[in-house]
């Protein structure tokens, strides 16, 4: 039990994929303009991350390792990710057409979210078992959701704040992301 808590805390806060490892910055900047779409994106990405962590563990343990094809990990995992994202897209289109419309092009772009590939690759290099790696995937998704929702909430307030002309738009977003990253660095050494 304690082990699971350690995995969750470490993947959500200490090794946060966005702010500490700097993976998955594209949706972090792209979908954080509106809180609502950020929440939808966070949920979709968490779903994809958890499923990918499970599926890539199975592919790695049952296909790649017995055949001695570890060097094909990257290409095999990209295959897994593309399939999972396509599945998520169909699932969302069926269950929530509104969310599907809001996410638009960012939904298929989860495929190229490097946090997803990063989780799959790190899981295999850390020698985690099935439960641990799926929990790790979920933790990475939860960490991504946390910072994406925080960041979009801040950007909504920044939109109406009195910002100097030269800092408006992307510049102040970058500065904010940098400050958030500094804050998250403070978690290192927690466990």
């Amino acid at each position, binding site marked *: 039990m304690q082990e699971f808590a350690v995995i969750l805390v470490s993947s959500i806060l200490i090794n946060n994929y966005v702010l500490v490892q700097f993976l998955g910055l594209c949706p972090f900047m792209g979908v954080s303009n509106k809180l609502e779409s950020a929440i939808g994106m966070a949920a979709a990405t968490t779903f994809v991350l958890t499923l990918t962590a499970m599926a890539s563990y199975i592919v790695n343990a049952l296909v790649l390792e017995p055949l001695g*094809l570890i060097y094909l990990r990257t290409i*095999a995992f990209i*295959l897994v990710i593309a399939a999972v994202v396509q599945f998520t897209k*169909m699932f969302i289109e069926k269950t929530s057409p*509104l969310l599907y419309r809001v996410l638009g092009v960012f939904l298929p772009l989860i495929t190229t979210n490097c946090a997803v590939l990063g989780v799959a690759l790190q899981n295999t290099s850390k020698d985690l078992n099935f439960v641990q790696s799926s929990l790790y995937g979920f933790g990475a998704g939860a960490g991504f959701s946390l910072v994406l929702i925080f960041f979009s909430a801040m950007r909504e307030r920044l939109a109406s704040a009195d910002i100097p002309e030269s800092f408006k738009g992307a510049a102040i977003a970058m500065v904010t992301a940098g400050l958030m990253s500094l804050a998250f660095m403070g978690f290192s050494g927690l466990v």
Partner: protein
Amino acid sequence: MIELIAQNPILAALIALVGLAIIFGALLGFAAEKFKVEGNPIVEQIDELLPQTQCGQCGFPGCRPYAESIANGDAINKCPPGGQATINAIASLLDVPAPELDEEHGQESPVRTVAYIREDECIGCTKCIQACPVDAILGAAKLMHTVIADECTGCDLCVEPCPVDCIDMLPVAETLTDWNWSIPKKPGQLIATDTRGELSHAHTQGGGA
């Protein structure tokens, strides 16, 4: 066979990747069948909210084309037959603010109307028949026309083309089939003694809800 694969890493790699691709392809094909979406569900939902008069006052040939246009981001306040109620319903479906009805497309009439042709004045020009979007007008060239009242949606598109102005828009009379109990106006009027405080408050406010 297995030995052959074990001795040829390239063969093993090919078989593994092609196998994975086939498995994922099959899973996705199955999912596509299971999560099939017919048409655009958003369009269906908007189309259900529109009044289905097919009047064309929004500038589209009917309610469904307008629903498709709304789904692609068109303004939602172009439907006079639906009025403010329809605008509010679509706004809450799409989670956008509800604008006022666009006066450019017509005004909302408070009662439902049907077209009525004063038959002794009709010259049989068939212009109103061509204008009617729901084929509710019966008649032939140089013969008298008349309106099938049950089919008429009250869109008043036939009024404009009539050269002798013999078409009136009459309010629909209440019949036994469409009569409903009128809703009590406010709870204060049901049991006056229970809500005396509210009642006197409502009087000072000039009616209330």
